[in-house]
Every structure is written in structure tokens, then in C-alpha cells.
């Protein structure tokens, strides 16, 4: 698994670094590039995502909101303020909210409950763009990075977690919109591509789902932003010719629960870099 995953990551890395590689040297270069790519991922100076991670750390510690406190007592599932390994188990059921939440929903919840922060501006900046940073992207990059190197532990014990997985699966197969698309149209069959873009199979447990879900959030070179799963699914719905998907809605979380279930056990390496 590791090798094939690294190879596909490598293809991306090579595209970024060199824009291609002569076939004759491919074997040798592959070995070197794997090493180089590993370094690049973990090196705060080569992976631009670490800029987001650093900003996220500052935001985590920043006192704000009506209560003028930081997020440091926010419980992401592993106990107040405990960040290590929390992302590996999200989305999950939270007793205090009596809901299954993904990281972004949970952060908004903590901002409102702990900081009494008006989150309208935060939600407005949910997706960063040139000149506009996104607190959510920064926080997710920081928090997810605290699970890097761990394995995805999809939470399926609570009945509501099971319900969300089932709902996510149903949504995955729900065809609709002007082009009759569902997620399954593009992410169910092996070896399919759109133009030259390979499409991962996400509808069953396995390597493809693992290496996909284990590499989000990611720094998208084409967008110069760290993107989260919320953005990825919003983007896929955009391509599907469906309306603008609401940020932090339960349907997106349900899909994420379903995808994480299929990705269970996958190694987390985040923030990664993708095209």
C-alpha cells in the first residue's frame, strides 16, 4: 500500500518539481524522489502548508469572542484541549452536542460555546482565496497535523455514527442534477479517469480510499491553499452541476463518515501536497 501510495504522491511531487522525468532514469529517480517527497512533506520550509499550520496554532491560542478566551479548552473528542490523535477519529459523536460532527463543525461549535464568537465572518471566509486567509483552513491544518503518522480510526460504535455512515452511503449513490451525476458516477469503478485525471475508488474499503482520506487536508498547488474535506466535497458537487453545498452541513459530514469508514486503518500524512 505504502509503495503505491507513495508512487502516486510522487507523480504529483515530480510534476511540481520537475514537470516530468526522462524514462531512462525513472527507476533511480523514483527512489530518490520518494525520499525527497517524504522530506518535503515533513519539512516546514518546503511544504507551504506549514504556513497554514503555524497560523492555525496561533488562532488556536488566540483569545477572542465575547468571552475573550482561546480555543485551548475545546474538546475534539479526546478530552478538552487534547489535539494528538483527535483528527484520526473525526467525524465522531459528541455527547454535549448530541450530534456527529466533523472537525469543522466541531470547531464552529467550540467558537460559539467556548468563545461566544460570532462565526459569521469565519464562515464567510471558509475557503481562502488570494488576499483572504481562512481561519478554518488554518485551524484544520494545525489540528490534523497533530494526527500525522497515525492511522484513521473511523468511529462506528455509537448508533448515530452508524446512521451517518448509512446516510453518507445513500448520498454517495443519489443521482441528481442536470447531468444525472452521483459520487458513484466518478468514484465507484476502477481505473477511470476524467480527461487525464485519475479517479479514486471511494465506494469500498481499501487502499484507494485510505490513501485519499489519509492525505486531506492538503495544500493544493493549483489553488495555493490548504483545502479541507469540506472544500473537496463542495468542489465535487460543483463539478456535478449541483447547487452550492452548504458549509458544515450534516450531509457533507455524513459523506465524510462514509468515506472515513472505507478508509479505516489508512495512514494519515497531513497536510499533504496535491495538484
Amino acid at each position, binding site marked *: 500500500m505504502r509503495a503505491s501510495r507513495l508512487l502516486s504522491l510522487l507523480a504529483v511531487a515530480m510534476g511540481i518539481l520537475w514537470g516530468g522525468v526522462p524514462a531512462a532514469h525513472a527507476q533511480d529517480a523514483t527512489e530518490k524522489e520518494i525520499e525527497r517527497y517524504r522530506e518535503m512533506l515533513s519539512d516546514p520550509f518546503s511544504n507551504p502548508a506549514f504556513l497554514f499550520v503555524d497560523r492555525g496554532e496561533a488562532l488556536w491560542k488566540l483569545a477572542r469572542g465575547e468571552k475573550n478566551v482561546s480555543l485551548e479548552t475545546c474538546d475534539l473528542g479526546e478530552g478538552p484541549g487534547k489535539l494528538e490523535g483527535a483528527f484520526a477519529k473525526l467525524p465522531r459523536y459528541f455527547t454535549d452536542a448530541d450530534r456527529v460532527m466533523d472537525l469543522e463543525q466541531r470547531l464552529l461549535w467550540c467558537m460559539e460555546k467556548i468563545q461566544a464568537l460570532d462565526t459569521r465572518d469565519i464562515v464567510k471566509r471558509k475557503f481562502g482565496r488570494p488576499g483572504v486567509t481562512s481561519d478554518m483552513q488554518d485551524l484544520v491544518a494545525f489540528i490534523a497535523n497533530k494526527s500525522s503518522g497515525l492511522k484513521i480510526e473511523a468511529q462506528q460504535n455509537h448508533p448515530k455514527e452508524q446512521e451517518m455512515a448509512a446516510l453518507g452511503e445513500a448520498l454517495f449513490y443519489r443521482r441528481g442534477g442536470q447531468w444525472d451525476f452521483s459520487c458513484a458516477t466518478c468514484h465507484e469503478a476502477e481505473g477511470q479517469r476524467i480527461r487525464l485525471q485519475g479517479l479514486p475508488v471511494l465506494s469500498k474499503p481499501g487502499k484507494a480510499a485510505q490513501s485519499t482520506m489519509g492525505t486531506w487536508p492538503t495544500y493544493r498547488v493549483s489553488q495555493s491553499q490548504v483545502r479541507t474535506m469540506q472544500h473537496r466535497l463542495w468542489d465535487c458537487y460543483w463539478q456535478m452541476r449541483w447547487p452550492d453545498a452548504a458549509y458544515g452541513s*450534516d*450531509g457533507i459530514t455524513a459523506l465524510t463518515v462514509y468515506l472515513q469508514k472505507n478508509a479505516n486503518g489508512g495512514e494519515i500524512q497531513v497536510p499533504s501536497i496535491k495538484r
Partner: protein
Amino acid sequence: MRTLIHSAAAALFAVAAFTLPAVAQSAKVDPAVVEKAVTGMFGHAPAAWQEKIVQDETQKACSLHRNAPPADVAKAISAREEKNVVLPADGKFLGDWKSGEKIAQSGYGGRHTDDPKREVGGNCYACHQLSKKELSFGTMGPSLVEYGKIRKYKDEDVKAAFIKIYNAQAVFPCSNMPRLGHSKHLNEQQIKDLVALLFDPESPVNK
């Protein structure tokens, strides 16, 4: 090629008979719960957009059977979709392949950030190989290289291609190919231009 696709369809239906119990088992979600989640995700969109994501009978059936409908459902889908096809009043199916190539290349249109006044495309290359010169093509659908040539440019195949592009599911129930004419994404002239791309001997598809 056609027989290949048809036998693939037949195989799919055969498989469906066996996989159905498993499908039914994993799909134990009340449809009302699914629709509520859809409203939660998209309920804020304008009314015209809401209509687009209300499922029609065909979308409902294909979702329920995960694109592998049992034979009777498949028959009902193709019967319904065939009725939805509007053939050109002038009886002509062939337009201009040059314009067809542009339409096949473009994937513009239908996204919520797209300008509704700009000309839309059919996005054919996203899923199909067409012109041999275009190397950036997808593989979700079969290669259409030499489509007309292979069929000896026969009139009945020309008409069949118009129907296919107009409503893919009239030919192959639960196809992953969008019903581009039926949904009014493409107009009649655009479909004629695409048929010409497939069937004009001068088109790069047949060169």
C-alpha cells in the same frame, strides 16, 4: 462496439440479479432522511436550482438499484426515456463537425458559478476518446475513435447516435452518461453538430 456495450448491459443486468440483496441490505436508510439531508445541504439555493436536484423517476430507480437495475426496471427506464427523445423536425441529423469538436472539448455550463449566457459544452472528452489528435481524454465511456467509419456511415447509426446523445438512458438504462438533450443542457443544433463529429468522413474522429 455496440454489441460490446449491449452485452455489457446484459451482463450488468445479470449481475444485478445476484447483487441486489446485498444492495438492499446496505441501503437501509429511510428515503425521507436522505432527502432531509439534501435539503440541509442545498435548501438555501434558488428555486430554479432546487428543481434540478429533485429526482425524476429514472434517477430514483438508478439510485435505488445503484445503476444495476433488474430487467423489468431497466425496461421501464428505456421505454420512458425513449418517449422523451425529440427527433429533429427536419429529419436531418448531421450538423457541422467543426462546431461539434468545440462542443465536445468544452465542459462549460451548468455549474453554479457558470455564466448562463455563455455557450455550453458537452464535455465529451472528459469521458471519451474522440479525435486521435486529442490526447487528453477520459475513459469513463468507450473510445469513439472512427465511430462513423466503423459503422460505414449508415443512416440508422446516425440516427441512433442522435438518440444516444439526446438521451443516453433511452439506449442504456442507468448509463453514467448524462441525458444531455433531455435535460436541455444541449440544444438540437449542438447535438446535430456532435453527430457530425462522429459521422462526417472529414471529421478528425474518422480521419
